[in-house]
């Protein structure tokens, strides 16, 4: 039993140390200037830790909000939506042009 508790304590200690190291890397990464991740392995790891942390928080928020985000859509979603609506509009224009061609053809046949 003692060995088992000691194993769990070792696991907790390892986890705590890793967690502290991770948080420190995030702090350092957040302090980096944009574009400075290529200054060496340490800067890369710190920058990556900050990026992962950002994504983790975003994911945490998405999971908690169950897709009903009251902060509104992200810019990338807006761009996608704008693109989709623009395409639909162009598609509709195409349909109208095709219908117009059919109407013109029927009208010219009636005139004949």
């Amino acid at each position, binding site marked *: 039993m003692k060995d088992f508790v000691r194993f769990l304590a070792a696991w907790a200690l390892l986890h705590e140390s890793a967690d502290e190291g991770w948080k420190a890397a995030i702090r350092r990464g957040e302090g980096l200037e944009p574009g400075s991740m290529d200054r060496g392995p340490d800067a890369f790891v710190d920058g990556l830790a900050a990026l992962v942390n950002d994504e983790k928080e975003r994911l945490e928020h998405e999971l908690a909000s169950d897709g009903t985000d009251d902060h509104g859509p992200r810019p990338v979603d807006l761009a996608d939506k704008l693109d989709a609506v623009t395409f639909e509009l162009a598609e509709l224009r195409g349909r109208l*042009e095709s219908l117009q061609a*059919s109407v013109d053809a029927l009208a010219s046949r009636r005139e004949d």
Partner: protein
Amino acid sequence: MSERGRAIAGVALRRAVVALWGVRFGLRRGRSRRRIVARQLRLACEELGPTFVKLGQLASVRPDLVPAEAVFELEQLQDRLPAVPTDRIRAIVAAELGAPPERLFATFDPDPIATASIAQVHRATLANDYRPVVGPVLRAGASVAVKVIRPGVEGRIAEDLTVASRWASRLERLPHLKRLGPRSILAEFRSSLRSELDLRNEGRVADRFARDFADDRLIVVPRVVWRHTTRRVLVSEFVEGWRLNELGDAERSGIDARGLATHGAEVFLRQVLVHGRFHADLHPANLFVTPDGRICYLDFGIVGRTSPEQRIAIAQVLAATVYGDADRALRYSRELGLDVPERDAGAVRDAVATLMRRHLVGQEPADVRGFALGFLSMLADFRIPVPEGYGLLVKALATVEGVARSIYPDIDITRTAAPFATRLVAAQLGQPRRLRERLPAATRAALREILA
């Protein structure tokens, strides 16, 4: 019985007798028998004309409905007919668009560039600029392809389908064939055929494909000129290039054939697994390679669709297949509706593993078509029905390989499919909804592992 009905019955009977003789009146069994019958079925379709050629083409993308041997035989259907005189084509254009082609276009070539069972294609040039739904403006003088439905083809198809309906009703009375549901299969094919006879549907699909691949500079989808497009006439950008079945060593030498074949395979996987909308009539005659080394998609008459749920399961089966993991492939196959009876599970698993070893894993290059044919035949041997989405995947993979090899004969598409499927599976696992589904079970499993 109408004259056409008698003609159809005559061809069907003659081909059935030849098939019966070929299978030695039932003495030949299994795959050999199915192969002989499939060949006679293809020849009968070619003999019976446009309706049956089209029905055969539709059947060739549905391994869930017809045996594997027929699927791979029917994809070879020859869809060529003599040209319709240009005056009759002119008359259709004038009736559809209100003016003869010479007044609508700057130039119109009276000699067709392609003739098939449903439509004939002529080359022309635009008289004015046109802004398409997707892509830059087509300038006056740009070359276009004018696709026109052949005169009388709609009436002929309606007449043939009426005869086929009567036959389907008769066949449905036979207990052995009733479970296949010939009437519902015919109804489904009738609806697909009706959609194909309205060329506006093809134009819409082309626009959607163009949008799906707008960011891919190696893919060309001809821009549709809606101003001159109606139910029976489709006008789209003319793209110069070589059809894949015309691609020789000289043409290949000027382009990065290997890169293009790899990209072509990935693009097709993107259609099936990302966009959920794919060119289901993909064969070397429907694809062009342009002189500047791009792939041009043509003829969007038959389009397949995959649901988001199917896409996830298909990606998993695909990943498991290309990595040679039979257990995983069968596990995810169940999510696509493949129902392997418990008593056959071990034998089916062993058969799949053998097929993977024989055709895929460690083979240089892998033979996906051989695997697909062997796999579907094995399911038929075990009398396991093929679900629609599943048949789609197997056929799609074999098609991708055929097309990619037309561009670069030595390509191994599993090398493209493996990283693609892995990325896709990883991306799907990273989606919030999937994570939300999987996190509780993953946490429980991790705790169990630690406390074990």
